[in-house]
C-alpha cells in the first residue's frame, strides 16, 4: 500500500516489479478509507470493519469490482476464505 506521484509512476513501478496494475485511489478516497477504519481505533468500542461493511464502504467511495471484495475468490489461492478485513 504505497503512494505514487502519478499514474505514469505507478505503471512504471508495476512494470519494473512485475506486478499487475491495480485500481488507483485518490487522496480524498484514501482519507475516507482511513477515517472509516481508524477514527474509533483508540476507543474501547473500536472494531475493524467486517466484510459486509467493507463492501458498503468501498461501494460508497466508488471502489468496485473483485479487487475490493474481501471474500472474492477471483484471485486464486483460496484467498476468499481469509476475509481480508484490515
Amino acid at each position, binding site marked *: *500500500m*504505497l*503512494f*505514487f*506521484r*502519478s*499514474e505514469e*509512476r*505507478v505503471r*512504471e*513501478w*508495476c512494470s*519494473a516489479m512485475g*506486478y*499487475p*496494475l*491495480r485500481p*488507483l*485511489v*485518490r*487522496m*480524498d*478516497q*484514501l*482519507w*475516507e*478509507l*482511513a*477515517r472509516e*477504519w*481508524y*477514527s474509533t*481505533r*483508540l476507543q*474501547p468500542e473500536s472494531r*475493524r470493519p467486517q466484510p459486509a461493511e*467493507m463492501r458498503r464502504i*468501498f461501494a460508497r467511495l466508488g471502489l468496485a469490482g*473483485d*479487487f*475490493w*471484495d*474481501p*471474500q*472474492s*475468490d*477471483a*484471485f486464486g*489461492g483460496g*484467498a*476468499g476464505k*481469509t*476475509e*481480508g*478485513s*484490515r
Partner: protein
Amino acid sequence: MELELAAKLAIYEHFATSGHRPSVADIAARVGADVPEVREILVRLRAQRVLVLEADGESIRMAPPFSGVPTQHRVIAAGVSYYANCAWDAFGIPAALHRPATVHSRCEQSFEPLDLPVSDQGPRASDWLFHCVVPAAQWWDDIVFT
C-alpha cells in the same frame, strides 16, 4: 476479557502519546497484570488481527495504523513522530488521533518526497495516488507485505 480490552487500550494509548511501541513490561505495569499474562493476551490480539507481532512473539510490529518499527511513512502530529505501516495507515494516524498532522512519505517509483498536511477535514488537495498490489481478500495472507 476485561483485561484484554485494558491491554489493547494501553497499547494504543502508549503509541498515541509516545509514537513508540510499548514493551510487554510497559503493558503489564499499565494494566496491573503479570508479564506472562500479557504475553498470552498479545497472542490472542494477534489472532483477532488487532496486532502483528515480531518473531519473538511479544514485540509489537503493528498496531494499525501505528508501526512498531521505522518505515518510509512518517507522521508528525502535535510534535510527536509516528511511523505508519503503509500509505493507508499514514492517513489512519491523524484519523485515529483526531489531530492535524503532516504525512511524510515518498513516491515508490521516483522517490520524490511527499509532505502532505492533513487536517480533520482530510488531506490538502493533492493529485498523488494510492496503489495496492494485493486484492482485499488477500490482505491478511501476508499483512506485512500488503
